[in-house]
């Protein structure tokens, strides 16, 4: 590869198989990225549409050039603007599973999977043997002679994965791999895909806007919004302590920015005051395990908020405030009420409670939440 001879001085740490540090500018859009993925690690890239997830994936695949910075895989530079190195896509050791799979419609399942080995000038027979091994592994042998048009969504997804893996890639890139599937198939394929990803020895990047997919299938999450990384960490950590409204919304939490004073009261930017003492950040060295003061984020689960028709008198919750119902949405087993107040909140209650409280749009309502159910942590922004 073109960069191999001069890569010596800038090798990324050996633990990171993939290291990206740079930017891509496309017209007025700019993506800034700085991340590393270890061998065998599955990094989820989560973000709303247009955040730059696919641009990141295309830069890694060699379909888009970095504007500044560099990409290194296993110590070899794939893209380095300063050194004028760019390894074109067809020479990168990558496997890409595209959103709509992009299977070749005129080729059979077997020839689709044998495509990459054939491109490497492997003989026809050997290529077919490689394809056969992957078909066996992914349970596709019976579909060998079919054309993509004759496959179900789940089958097509597996063929796309097999086709990418048959290239024997050093880096696996998946762009919304389950987005094209219906809900039921998604469930089956998700577990299966997770298993196959666990078997893959190299770094994997999984781009998604589906929070469940991101939580279940990845080892670590990077959240991108408007071309910037806004949060990263283990999925559970991201889910518990969202750093932005977008993340809070996808993981289903109420999130408020505010300022916490020494007495423990948090004055919220959105209006209102909350006393929060839940889930102190023991790893936060700056506060030595105590709740932080200054700029903080406050997160409340929609189920941790109780609703009352009158002001609760006898209850212990330290946080009580008033609001108005502005929306009701039926989730699978509960109802999510949208409350406008100071602060506004999403509250999950049982359908029974909706009837008991006689909820309807415009109805005034009292909300309460225990201080211990409200998490407070430092605002990274």
């Amino acid at each position, binding site marked *: 590869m073109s960069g191999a001879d001069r890569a010596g001085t800038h090798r990324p740490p050996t633990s990171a198989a993939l290291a990206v540090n740079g930017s891509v500018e496309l017209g007025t859009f700019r993506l800034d990225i700085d991340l590393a993925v270890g061998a065998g690690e599955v990094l989820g890239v989560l973000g709303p549409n247009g955040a730059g997830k696919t641009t990141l994936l295309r830069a890694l695949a060699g*379909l888009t050039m970095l504007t500044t910075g560099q990409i290194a895989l296993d110590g070899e530079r794939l893209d380095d603007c300063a050194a004028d190195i760019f390894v074109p896509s067809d020479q990168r050791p990558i496997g890409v599973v595209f959103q709509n799979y992009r299977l070749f419609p005129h080729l059979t399942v077997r020839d689709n999977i044998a495509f990459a080995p054939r491109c490497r000038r492997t003989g026809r027979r050997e290529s077919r043997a490689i394809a056969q091994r992957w078909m066996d592994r992914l349970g596709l042998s019976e579909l060998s002679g079919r054309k993509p048009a004759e496959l179900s969504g789940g089958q097509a997804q597996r063929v796309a994965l097999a086709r990418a893996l048959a290239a024997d890639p050093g880096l696996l890139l998946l762009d919304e791999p389950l987005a094209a599937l219906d809900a039921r198939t998604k469930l089956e394929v998700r577990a299966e895909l997770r298993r196959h990803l666990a078997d893959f020895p190299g770094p994997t990047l999984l781009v998604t806007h589906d929070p469940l997919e991101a939580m279940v299938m990845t080892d670590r999450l990077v959240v991108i919004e408007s071309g910037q990384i806004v949060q990263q960490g283990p999925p559970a950590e991201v889910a518990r302590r969202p750093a932005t409204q977008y993340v809070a919304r996808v993981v289903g939490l109420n999130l408020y920015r505010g300022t916490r004073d020494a007495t423990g009261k948090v004055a919220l930017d959105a209006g209102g005051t909350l006393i929060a003492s839940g889930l102190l950040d023991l790893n936060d060295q700056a506060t030595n395990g105590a709740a932080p003061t200054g700029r903080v984020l406050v997160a409340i689960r929609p189920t941790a908020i109780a609703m009352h028709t009158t002001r609760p008198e006898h209850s212990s919750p330290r946080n009580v405030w008033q609001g108005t119902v502005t929306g009701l949405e039926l989730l699978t087993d509960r109802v999510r009420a949208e409350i406008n107040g100071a602060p506004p909140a999403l509250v999950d209650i049982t359908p029974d409670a909706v009837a008991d409280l006689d909820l309807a749009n415009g109805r005034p309502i009292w909300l309460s939440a225990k201080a211990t159910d409200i998490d407070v942590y430092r605002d990274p922004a």
Partner: protein
Amino acid sequence: MIGFAFLMLPLVALLIRAPWSGLGSLLSNSEVLTALRLSIECATAATLASLILGVPLAWMLARIHLPGMGLLRALVTLPLVLPPVVGGIALLLALGRRGVVGRYLDQWFGLTLPFTTAGVIVAETFVAMPFLVVTVEGALRSADRDLEEAAVTLGASRTTVFGRITLPLIAPSLLAGSVLCWARALGEFGATITFAGNLPGTTQTMPLKIYNAFETDPEAATALSLVLLLVAVIILAALRDRWLRGSPSA
């Protein structure tokens, strides 16, 4: 309905007046067979030449985005609307023995195109190639670039992508374009007679033969016309699926 009748009437007349009884002997006439064979050979050669020159041109027009590409595209289709006689004269001025380029072909290589079978092929290619270019260009334009991109990520070089992905995807349009091109070349008259002349056995293709025969032996001309009509109907039948269903290449 009147429009349809107008289109069909001459063809029906041709069928009515065709000398059905003498058809066999007329068509086994060696001169006719020579002209027919020459026509088919030249049209086929012109189609091959169009494929070799036209497919890369179509690819360029469809895929390269440079200022002036629109003008180039318009120029390529010019022979479609140019009267073939004008095309023939233009060819003579370019490739004739005293032509802009033809002069050097003659001086340096002893190559003369006018009044040779090669000249017929050149004239037919000039007139018929735009049919192929336009059809293939449209297909390339609408071909799925995503699939080509997927092939690249799997390690396919440019030529592999073209050969294994792009070409198979546009195959139906390529075939249709070739058939159109061949049919146009087979019926070519104006440019051929102007540039290549009307020499039996060398440059006298079926349309020229029919024109000649019409002055001496109208019955024979009718019979020969019938043959070309038959060819046209066969082509139409072959392309029926494409046109009746109105579906461009998949």
